[in-house]
């Protein structure tokens, strides 16, 4: 048995790229899957997929899924699940409509009240899960039914709308070009370039750190290729956006939230403890971690994000309908699992969940452009979810 770093390095060198690729298949697989799916739909839709309008649309259409996937990832990493998010989202949208359209409350007040309502809903469900140890599947299944009914009741079965412009801006607004050029939108380009540079810088820093500790390193060519693809894709999308109406407000919201939650889960004490909770709740508890409070907080956070998604969704449709959000929880949960999270908790990444959501989103969008019926769409999405998870399990077995 040999364990020194130099031995490990020699081993890595002789095993070569193929072996490295084999053991890190999951990380690359997700990225390549997204690219392959985009390329496929770009081809079969005669280039419609990547038109500036459609890219903008893609972001708008998937924003609420992604926002909820962030919260869902954390809930699932913590070892639970939330089936109620679709209904909660619909309910909050309905609440906003009633407050603004029927009661005439100001937009700002409404937003705050709605987010507060989401937090309360999350807390109410989290309380039973965390402190009473009632399985989250059951509590949130109940929540799903309750809030479906509540939306219907609140809207009295009718659609309520439209919303004032200031509320719609939550979703369909765009960041104006601060440089006044507008086509292309220089602000968008600037933000894009800065973001790409930040991604590259962080990648290089991590690589240097791995080096310093002698961890098996990604071959340089892989590193360069992977980052070139990511940077290229980002710049391409930003360029397209800038030639249309610039950065959608909701893209900024999504981007900021993704960064915040990625930081929270990977770099903070709180995040680390959530992973420990999901990985082994008993051991976490005996390490002095307040496991109940932590589980409770994951649901509070989920409620908050579901409410935010509800506002974005209502703003985009410009009306609240009693059926809004039906079945949406399934898309959200699917995104998280496609992104590599484990059903048993303790495993999963924010970035994975976001990419998983985009994979679902691009497929939805692409198939709709192609005019594929909703029946086939559902079947295909189901199979993709299954394939992603099988791929995961297969990879694990091969390594074990």
């Amino acid at each position, binding site marked *: 048995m040999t364990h020194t770093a130099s031995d490990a390095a020699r081993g890595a060198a002789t095993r070569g790229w193929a072996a490295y690729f084999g053991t890190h298949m999951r990380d690359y697989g997700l990225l390549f899957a997204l690219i392959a799916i985009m390329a496929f739909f770009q081809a079969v839709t005669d280039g419609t997929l990547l038109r500036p309008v459609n890219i903008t649309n893609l972001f708008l259409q998937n924003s609420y899924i992604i926002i909820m996937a962030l919260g869902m990832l954390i809930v699932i990493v913590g070892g639970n699940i939330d089936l109620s998010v679709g209904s909660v989202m619909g309910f909050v949208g309905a609440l906003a409509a009633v407050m603004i359209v029927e009661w005439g409350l100001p937009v700002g007040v409404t937003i705050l009240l709605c987010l507060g309502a989401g937090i309360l809903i999350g807390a109410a469900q989290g309380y039973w899960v965390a402190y009473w140890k009632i399985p989250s599947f059951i509590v949130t299944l109940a929540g799903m039914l309750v809030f479906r009914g509540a939306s219907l009741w609140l809207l009295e079965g009718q659609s309520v709308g439209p919303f004032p412009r200031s509320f719609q801006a939550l979703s369909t607004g765009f960041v104006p070009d601060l440089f006044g050029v507008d086509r292309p939108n220089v602000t968008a380009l600037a933000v894009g370039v800065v973001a790409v540079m930040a991604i590259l810088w962080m990648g290089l820093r991590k690589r240097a750190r791995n080096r310093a500790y002698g961890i098996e390193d990604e071959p340089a060519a892989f590193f360069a290729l992977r980052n070139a693809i990511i940077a290229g894709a980002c710049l391409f999308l930003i360029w397209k956006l800038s030639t249309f109406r610039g950065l959608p407000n909701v893209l900024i919201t999504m981007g900021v939230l993704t960064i915040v939650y990625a930081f929270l889960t990977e770099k903070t004490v709180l995040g*680390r403890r959530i992973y420990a909770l999901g990985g082994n709740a008993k051991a976490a508890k005996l390490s*002095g971690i307040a496991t109940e409070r932590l589980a409770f907080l994951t649901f509070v956070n989920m409620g908050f994000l579901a409410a935010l998604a509800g506002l974005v969704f209502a703003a985009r449709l410009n009306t609240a309908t009693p059926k809004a959000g039906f079945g949406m929880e399934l898309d959200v949960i699917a995104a998280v699992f496609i992104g590599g999270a484990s059903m048993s908790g303790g495993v999963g990444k924010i970035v994975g969940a976001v990419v998983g959501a985009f994979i679902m989103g691009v497929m939805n969008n692409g198939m709709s452009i192609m005019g594929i019926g909703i029946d086939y769409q559902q079947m295909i999405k189901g199979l993709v979810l299954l394939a992603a998870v099988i791929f995961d399990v297969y990879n694990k077995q091969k*390594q074990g």
Partner: protein
Amino acid sequence: MATLLEMRGITKTFPGVRALDDVTFSVREGEIHALVGENGAGKSTLMKVLSGVYPHGTYEGDIVYDGEVMAFGGIADSERRGIIIIHQELALVPLLSIAENIFLGNERATAGVISWQETNARAQELLRKVGLREAPQTQVDRIGVGKQQLVEIAKALSKDVRLLILDEPTAALSESDSQALLDLILELKAQGVTSIIISHKLNEVRRVADSITVLRDGATVATRDARTEPVTEDRIVRDMVGRSMENRYPARTRRAGDVLFEVRNWNVTHPDHAERQVVRDVSLHVRRGEVVGIAGLMGAGRTELAMSVFGRSYGRNITGTVAVGGRTVDTSSVARAIGAGLAYVTEDRKELGLVLEESVQKNVTLANLPKVATGGVLRQEDETRVAEDYRRAMNIRTPSVFQQVMNLSGGNQQKVVLSKWLFAGPEVLILDEPTRGIDVGAKFEIYNIINDLSKDGKGVLMISSEMPELLGMCDRIYVMNEGAFVGELTAAEASQERIMSLIVTD
């Protein structure tokens, strides 16, 4: 005697680790063959190769069994040839009955319909063979680990075992349960069953083994025949660690200071059965610099006592007071207990001690994350440095601190748990079976660490089922039986006989 098994040139690698390097291992028909070596030497891995857990093609080398080269594709294949492995971690289904567990995967059924009469009758017969007096219908989680181990053997016997592999079967057993198990293995030998037994308890090895093979760093060091030459424990130790070990317990200057830790009138009842009192009116104290032991049989309530003190992690209706440094402290949650300066190293590392899917580093820092964080944000460089320090200090064998803990050998996992609690920087360290599954060399290192703590004026409370360990390490020993303390002995007074007689006369 004929050779039953020969493993030739076995090499097995994991990413970054060469667990076995050209190992040769041969077993004669009808003998008991002991396999010993340090933690991480590759013992479990070798047995997993043999039993098909790592199937043919995932390793190099040949397995020749009964004169034929074998290519097992999985456990089912090796079982068909009569090779049965009982793993380091028991693999029974807790909510099923003894009989159901024995015939799991091998059900007594015709056309898929189980015959419960036959199942229970056959199970009864097997239980008699292994000397276990329990009804076959008893649920497995109702019986202790010692008995569960016997159920595993009954299960093996139900499959017409020819070569029985036992990976550290006595690690979690009490003295008397271990004796019973070893007797059973000797009896099976008389009936013609060949056994391979892995153990860190060298006295047991000496007692039952006909041959002894020593592995070191993934290679065979020696195979010794106990029937032709007398094999002393010292001989085995020298093969294992490459040097002689004069003393099993490092010397320590004993110097007890003020009372540091005190528990008064502690009472605990069972979490589910309020009428069952698990700890009865226990009072104890530990002075600064003192190492105090708690002796007792399995089920005496020692773990329950420790866990109920540590953040009320066990039991109900807990009454009594805890004081640290003369002041009464609140230990009603684990976080508060840690805050008061306590740490508890669990006896059940997989269930209660480790997050198996996480890295060594993340496990080591888990109980004291604020120490490697600023304003809630982790300083990852510092975290890695801390983990590296413990890796070196505790001699944890792993390719890097980023390795998942589940890929470490059992003994090295134990060292990770210990590191975690040392990093928490406690005043009082409660150790529950701290050397379970740990090799002789590493035990010595752990004893050294205990001595260092005591030299720094910390208090150590040690629960152990290995009496020699308590006698070798402790300044004072409390004896516990059926939930109550039945005696207290100083190091000078204590002996195995005194402790046993206190328990028996209770």
